[in-house]
């Protein structure tokens, strides 16, 4: 599979703050790649550097396995930080400027305005738009000309639930056509719902990256007790999803990779000749898991 974006050892410092710290990320064709991290973790700075309006202190990056250039940026649709448009120009004229810059003409303008639900207001100046409409115009501008890659920085930031749902629906529709998408977000829920792959950032460093189902999987925790604890440990560690365990108050806390069903566990142990005296499911929420990820790396 072709690599769409590869970032190698990218760093950027703003005064005393190391905004991005030797970051390496690889995004493959067709992925919906989430860059997840709390505010100030370096998501926007990273995107600013790869889109060439902020200079990296060190490190390199490549688009579509080529050195970055303005020509390559024409193949990318992006929404960065806040919607940036000429306030006194209408939605249509703002999009026409982008059409001119990208050299793709104006044929696609009506379509993206309809997709984003702004067609009726297309002749109004940008400054008269509500925040939600501005955000939607930004998305429309990114979709213009069906780019191969879509980069969205906090696309649902500041929107009401209805607006969020609308934008997510558009993103998923675009993804269906095989467009690669990179989304930066501080919302775990958003990444979880939309992305296939994820990199978790904190203080400019990458903590984890990989498939969403692996990185953000609910690692289950189950409380077990049996008459022979040592045998229980030995047996449960043979379980395919076993991760690790700890003892507490005569109970055994066992962590699993991915989801496990109590019934399935019970059956597994029973087959190996162990009779449980206690079994209790202690699922952690995703939110807890994400916070723990960040906590571990403080």
């Amino acid at each position, binding site marked *: 599979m072709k690599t769409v974006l590869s970032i190698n050892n990218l760093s950027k410092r703003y005064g005393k703050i190391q905004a991005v710290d030797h970051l390496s990320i690889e995004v493959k064709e067709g992925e919906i790649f989430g860059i997840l991290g709390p505010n100030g973790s370096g998501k926007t700075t990273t995107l600013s550097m790869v889109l060439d309006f902020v*200079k990296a202190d060190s490190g390199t990056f490549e688009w579509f396995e080529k050195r970055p250039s303005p020509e390559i940026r024409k193949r*990318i649709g*992006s929404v960065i930080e806040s919607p940036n448009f000429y306030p006194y120009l209408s939605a249509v004229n703002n999009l026409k*400027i982008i059409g001119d*810059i990208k050299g793709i003409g104006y044929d696609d303008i009506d379509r993206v305005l309809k997709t984003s639900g702004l067609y009726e207001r297309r002749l109004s100046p940008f400054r008269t738009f509500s925040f939600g409409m501005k955000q939607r115009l930004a998305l429309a501008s990114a979709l213009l000309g069906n780019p191969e890659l879509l980069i969205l920085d906090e696309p649902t930031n500041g929107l009401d639930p209805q607006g969020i749902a609308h934008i997510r629906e558009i993103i998923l529709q675009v993804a269906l056509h095989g467009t690669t998408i990179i989304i930066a977000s501080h919302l775990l829920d958003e990444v979880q719902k939309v992305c296939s792959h994820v990199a978790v950032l904190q203080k400019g460093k990458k903590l984890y990256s990989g498939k969403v189902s692996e990185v953000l999987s609910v690692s289950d925790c189950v409380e077990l007790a049996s008459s022979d604890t040592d045998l229980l440990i030995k047996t449960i560690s043979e379980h395919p999803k076993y991760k690790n365990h700890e003892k507490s108050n005569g109970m055994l806390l066992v962590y699993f990779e991915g989801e496990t069903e109590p019934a399935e566990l019970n059956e597994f142990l029973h087959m190996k000749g162990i009779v449980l005296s206690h079994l209790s499911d202690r699922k952690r929420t995703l939110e807890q898991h994400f916070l723990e990820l960040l906590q571990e790396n403080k």
Partner: protein
Amino acid sequence: MIKLFKIEFRKILTYRVFWILTGLYFIFLGLGIFMAEFILNDWVNNFNKRFPIPMPHVTLYFFPDIWQNLTFFASIRYVLIFPALVVIILITNEFTNKTIRQNVVNGLSKRDFLFSKLQFILLLSIFVTIVLGIVIFFLGLSHSDAQQFGMMSRKFMFLPGFFIQILSYLIFAFFFGFLLRHTGLAIALFTLYSLIIEPVIYYVLKIPFLQPNNVSPYLPVNSVLRIVEYPSIPFLQKFMGITLQNSVSLLHCGIALMYSAIMIGIVFWLMDKKDL
């Protein structure tokens, strides 16, 4: 280049502030050109009332002197500053609205962005010069006798001189816009520098003991203004001892163009180095 023009033109097409300022500029330019003779003669009349030696009335609109006279009145600081403010606003707007970022993200190179602004400056300068040329031609035609008409082209060179004036002054504004990036700050400092700070420096540098290395005429705005230094009015020579130019000051054309080249160079270098 046509692509850059299209982009730039769309940015100003429905921008009211641009049209208001440009409109005001042409009104002031027109007033300056058509009122100059009247105002000067009003002043001469007042002078003649108080002094026994009468001063002759001024005529500005005959060939070939009209080239020199009107390019002079079209290039006084207070008129030239209007298009300069337009240039500053169009540049700093891109930073305050962060649209320059969006332009670059969408695939415009920083260089092309700078070229689009320079192209706008060039076209505006050409347009104003052509309008001025047409006004001079018809005004001269209606005020000249046959003999003067025969000398029509003699001082034509003042028109290209004016073109270099407006072009290099607008490039000076371009420099301020990209250096300061904030609309208010850039407008305030540019206006202060053009109208107050440089004139003060000019006179400070003229203090006698600094005379041997007097650099006053070579300050940026001053060198632009000296391309067409005075109108061709005989009493300036007779009563004030001013030497009138017969042609454009090529020295100051050269200095102004040199400043322009340096400023453009600095802007390109800065834009390459700094984050947007």
